[in-house]
């Protein structure tokens, strides 16, 4: 059986079960839905990488002994954690982006795309959560470890990077994975500024065909798969990085 026949047969049998997946047979709608899946994947991957980098920087600022670094970082974390992502996205895209567009009107237009803004906002939002997790991890490292490292002649920088940070990363890993699961789910807000992610494409299709339930099921399945993958990745990393003598 050719793949096209197979698809047709599946759609027909689902139709018999009362589920209307006919959009999968229309080439353009199928293409836009598949493209939406790819865009969501790209969004999630870009935001995961950026959020981890930004989270690390923020955590370093949070535990810094310089108040002028630590206090702004603390303020940023509190504001970010206690305001809705969608409002942050609007503040970035509808306000900052607008101001940038105004400012660059004469010099060739605004190079920033909605996709980029979503990545920036989601990354910074989750970076605040990563930073808190890493900070808690740094504080959970037993002082004895640091004393032992110091007595072996480690300088304070080497102690931080070779002893405290690797341990903190392991302590923080479960929270970081949780944050990344949240991040994947959060990519749905991209649809609010018409980025063309899978949620947006689904809205476009169901407003034409009135098959909300069917697309919902697909979306839920897709996001379950993504969050499952993130969880599995996290678990594998936990296993790979496990500390002998800690945990099970």
């Amino acid at each position: 059986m050719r793949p096209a026949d197979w698809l047709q047969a599946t759609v027909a049998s689902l139709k018999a079960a009362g589920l209307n997946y006919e959009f999968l047979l229309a080439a353009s709608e199928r293409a836009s839905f598949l493209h939406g899946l790819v865009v969501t994947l790209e969004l999630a991957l870009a935001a995961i990488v950026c959020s981890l980098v930004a989270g690390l920087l923020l955590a370093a600022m949070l535990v810094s002994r310089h108040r002028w670094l630590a206090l702004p970082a603390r303020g940023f974390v509190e504001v970010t954690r206690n305001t809705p992502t969608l409002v942050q996205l609007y503040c970035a895209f509808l306000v900052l982006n607008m101001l940038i567009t105004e400012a660059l009107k004469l010099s060739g237009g605004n190079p920033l795309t909605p996709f980029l803004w979503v990545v920036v906002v989601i990354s910074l939002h989750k970076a605040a959560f990563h930073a808190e997790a890493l900070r808690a991890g740094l504080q959970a490292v037993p002082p004895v470890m640091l004393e032992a490292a110091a007595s072996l002649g480690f300088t304070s920088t080497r102690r931080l990077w070779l002893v405290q940070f690797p341990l903190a990363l392991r302590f923080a890993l479960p929270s970081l994975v949780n944050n990344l699961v949240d991040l994947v789910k959060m990519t749905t807000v991209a649809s609010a500024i018409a980025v063309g992610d899978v949620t947006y494409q689904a809205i476009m299709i169901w407003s034409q065909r009135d098959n909300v339930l069917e697309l919902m099921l697909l979306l839920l399945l897709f996001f379950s798969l993504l969050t499952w993958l993130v969880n599995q990745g996290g678990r594998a990393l936990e296993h790979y990085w496990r500390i002998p003598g800690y945990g099970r």
Partner: protein
Amino acid sequence: MADDTELTATLPAWRSTSSITLPVLAAIGITLLLTLGVLWLIPAWTASPLLGHVLRWLPALLWGMLANIQISVLAIALGTAAGLVIGALQLSPVVPAATVARWYVQIFRNAPMLILIYFSTYVFPFEIRLGNTYLAFPDWIKVTLGLALPASANVAEIFRGAIGGIPSAQWEAAAQLGLRRSQAYRWVILPQCLRRMLPPWMNLYATITMGTALASLVGVKDLLDTAQIASSTVNRVDFTVTVYFLTLLLFFLYCYPISRLTQYLEKKHAFH
């Protein structure tokens, strides 16, 4: 000894002196900075009619915020009631019930909130027929139900976690005192659970409150929706800047105290 003090001081000393007040000051500082930044963007703001626009729209914005609070309170109430039942079912000795409850929790904890909101808005009917009368089923109630779904799944998980965190010696001690399982549950286990559940439950409430901003995407007249209407009605750059950051500030003013209280309770609990 000198080495010792140096090592324990790997975290800056000023943090330990007043660990609560400084973050508060920092947060207030950053909001002030944001506001100042906004004001800086508007050179002649006292001369401009901006303040007038803001004052004219402020009641509508606050009214919109009330919708957010209403939705969040109702959603957490429904979610808590349903979540406690589902959480108890998860631990039930009846295997099918426990399995169904576990699937429910898995599905609704892993589903993006926005998708659940779309789900409840478009799949539920817009009115319910009760005999001959039609009862309107407005969008804000649908959004409330859409938020109550993840809330209930999370409450169930919090409940399960809290029960799991009670040492089994407590059950055994209760049995030794001649309490039946149900009595032990009611008089020994639950009171301890409630205290454990409070901080994560408040965290969940803050999350749900922030989730209510998504209601604007399905046309509920909430704070963010009002801000958008205000921005497009007044149609001035300085007002648009102000109104969106004001929205951010209003959400912050509501959620930040909850988060502080949660942290305080967590710290207090950590010593028990």
